[in-house]
């Protein structure tokens, strides 16, 4: 069974989310005295943060509802039954990104999308020369949030109940006029996803020295763990900013070295300087100090 467009989409999505994953460093550029320098990249930077869980279309609605964001990928087919489940998810407050290529013909006229679906055309891209196949989206209640160089909607959004549905017209989110091994995840869609995920991903990390790190979040009963993984052979330094509801003082403690970390809380954001040695990690526990709330 040949690799389908959907499988190319899954593959390219993971490369966009975890650049360089599952590959090997160039041994010719590695320090011969450093056994870590040639090890496979099983842990890498995370473009969106380590924010994903994979579910399947058999997933019950009550499980789906635990996720504020859902994106469809691969060979999934959104037929009437699945759409009903997804609409229930959205109207209750969830946000769904669905690619037009995943929609079964039987659901294309559903008003929930807030748009009419036209033919598949060739888009000249976003001014970067990367052509792609585009399902024409004619907003009919929805609004465009991303357009191609010709001004045609590539992503539209429609409010539904307490939530939103985003429809992506770029076929399988990939470059090229037919998904293949040469297709790549479209960079403007990556940027869109970053903006889409950002409201539910409470941490922002800025690198000042070293390579971009891996970022994980763990929710505690009171507070958060923020994990910074440095998987490169250089020391990492940067700023970590965590949105934290509530007010008052907070404590930041690095758990590996058991050190209290100085932090600043301003406009609902707690910020502190982070440092992680090469091939290592640091885990920061952030919680309201006595008298504060989170």
């Amino acid at each position, binding site marked *: *069974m*040949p*690799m*389908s467009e*959907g499988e190319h989409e899954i593959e390219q*999505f*993971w490369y966009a989310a975890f650049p360089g994953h*599952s*590959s*090997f460093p160039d041994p010719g550029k590695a320090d011969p005295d450093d*056994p*870590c320098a040639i*090890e*496979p*990249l*099983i*842990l*890498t930077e*995370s473009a969106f943060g*380590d*924010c*994903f*869980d*994979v*579910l*399947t*279309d*058999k*997933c019950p609605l009550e*499980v*789906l509802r*635990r*996720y*504020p*964001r*859902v*994106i*469809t*990928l*691969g*060979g*999934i087919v959104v037929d009437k039954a699945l759409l009903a489940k997804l609409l229930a998810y959205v109207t209750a407050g969830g946000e769904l990104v669905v690619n037009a290529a995943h929609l079964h013909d039987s659901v294309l006229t559903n008003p929930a999308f807030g748009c009419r679906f036209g033919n598949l055309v060739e888009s000249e891209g976003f001014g970067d020369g990367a052509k792609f196949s585009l399902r024409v989206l004619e907003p009919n209640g929805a609004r465009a949030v991303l357009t191609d160089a010709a001004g045609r909607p590539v992503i539209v959004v429609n409010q539904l109940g307490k939530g939103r549905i985003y429809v992506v017209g770029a076929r399988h989110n990939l470059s090229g006029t037919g998904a293949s091994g040469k297709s790549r995840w479209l960079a403007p869609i990556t940027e869109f996803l970053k903006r889409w995920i950002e409201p539910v*991903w409470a941490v922002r990390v800025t690198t000042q020295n070293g390579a971009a790190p891996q970022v*994980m979040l*763990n*929710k*505690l*009963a009171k507070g*958060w*763990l923020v*994990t910074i993984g440095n*998987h490169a052979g250089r020391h990492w330094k940067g700023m970590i900013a965590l949105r934290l509801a509530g007010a008052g003082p907070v404590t930041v403690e690095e*758990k*590996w070295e*058991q050190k209290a970390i100085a932090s600043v809380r301003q406009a609902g954001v707690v910020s502190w300087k982070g440092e992680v040695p090469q*091939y*290592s*990690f640091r*885990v920061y*526990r952030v919680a309201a100090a006595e008298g504060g709330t989170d």
Partner: protein
Amino acid sequence: MNGYCMGATMLAAITCCCAACAGNSQMEPLVAALRGQDDGARWRASIALGHLGKPAVPALVEALRDPDYKVRIAAANAIRDMGSKGAESVPILAENLSYSRDRELGYGAKEPSLYAGSPSMQVRWCAVAALGHIGPKALPAVPALLAMLRGEYESGLVGPKPGDVYGQKHWRAFELRGAAAWVLQKLGPGAAAEYPHVIPALAAALKDPARMVRLNAAAALRKMGPAAQGAVPALLEALKHEDQYTRIYAALAFTALGKQAAPYVPQLIQCHNTVHLDSLSRKRIRRAVFDISGEWPKVEPDSKPSLRGNEWAALGRRDFLLVVQPFGDSSLVIDPDKLIEAFVTARMANAMTCWPDHTWYNTPPPTADQMKQWGMAIVWYFFTEDIFNPKLERDWGFATLDEYNLALTERILEMGRALGKRRCLWSVGHEQMDAVGQWANQPDGSNRPPVFEAKMEGYEFYRRWITTSLHKRHWLEYGSTRPGKFYDGWNTAGKATWEFLADHKIDTSPVTMMSGGVSPVLAHASFDILPQIGAYWWECQIDGASLQIGSAYLRGASRQYGKQWLLDASPWSPVHGGPGWGFVDGKWSGGVTDAMQLRTWVYGYLAGASAVLEESSGGTHFRIEPYPHGPSDRPIMTSVGRTAQAAARFCFDLCPDRGQPYNPVAVLLEHAHGFESRPPHQLPAGRRLGLYADERGRA
């Protein structure tokens, strides 16, 4: 001609070529493939020729003289598969026991590997395995086997250079001595009757520096019947050996003498009392005394030393297990009690894994009492079709493979009833489940990949593969390429675990059942197909696949189905080879680096795994000095062990509250995902990645 085409040709040859009428013209393509350059076609030809039986023997005898060592291996494996029908090849197989071409062939910096050994070792291994399967008709090979047992052929092997820690750890020449004893065990009393040197040689082997040789020699003596009388002085001495396993095996060997062993009962009881922390072995020795004397001995009660020392909060954790593997010390030289004690007192883990099979010699499985004393949870890895089981069945003295499997199953369930379902997990396997390249293996040696027109067909094949004995075919390929591990052939004739459990109507509810794989993308399918499993076992690191992506699949599947997942951090490295002891004298000794291990273990904890397994830790976290002949009762912690301590300290002491991993974005896929072909990635040496099922197995 590529491998798949060759598979079809071979199938055609077999179809029109029954054992009675096989002619040279029909065998020619098989023999040509055996001697060709395509390794894949070679092993399939090997299986096909083994399937043909006696008519293929003359060609295989010729192949056993081939200058190419790979041809000899393939020929020996074909004979192994046909058993006694290959008897005419015994003289040439015996000659191959001293095959020595290492100096001419040379081999890579990371050889000998743990499984394969040097080219000469591989040839010898395969020859000895074939002799073992021929059975009593292999008696003419006994003089060569005795020479092998005495180590007389080892001068022809190229050993590790001085200072080569990796080579030293993985140097397995002693296994050949042990293998010779293993064949003598299979030949039984006939060997001793025809060759008077057998008993003295086995008696002398009880003093061999390698534990495996001593154990196999004792097991062989046990099979020799009254002729073992000549070994009594050596056996009595072995009852006092510093190595506990040697004492146990020597004690059991006295049953060969029947009632004639009655004068030695006091020594057997004395030996019994020197066995600590191993109630199963103590029970077997008491049984031996009963068989000899007709009376159950009065002995000291089983020892119950408290090893826990101060209470440690980690031992009470229910949500997370950090698992080590002290049973089955792969370095083969540390006293088992001392090793377990070292693991327990070092505060490295709150759980142990026990793999009763998957090992060369018996590792007595622990009892529930022992686990309670140590305060540890347990993760079993046991499957009824494991190719080691027939040897273990014989070593323990079970009458049939079913009896052995039932006894092990009962031990596991008994522990579940004692410790509770959350603290007793049982995996029925993983690596045999999703190497799609091996889904094509056919018992006749042909290679026919299943053709899926739709993803659901792939899904249904996967269902059949993991729930029935079909997945035994996975071992067929390994059986021809890794003789050091799978010398006993690929098919035990026992049913795979789920069918075995169903046949015997066994209720597994006292334990948490597990299945698994090397491909995390199939976790949803596994939970759906096997609702009786409570957790998915993912072997990771071994092929360089992303932990973050794999965990996204596993965590999502676990949340979707309300199950758990185990992250098995395999220390085998695609760039540094088999696991070593970390840094030794400032040099890296092999395996995944300490820095990567630490990040992987802690990552698993924070990413939400309910268990993180430090695979093979029995051979990496402690060592003896000097290796291998230092004092076996003084394990020294390695840099890997110190890293494990640091990980445990973090998970249990410094950051005991991990909360819940926060993953607000669901990636929604069709249920039957993960069954499409994928191209190889740009990796060194044609390596493939393990995220997806079909990227493994064909490298």
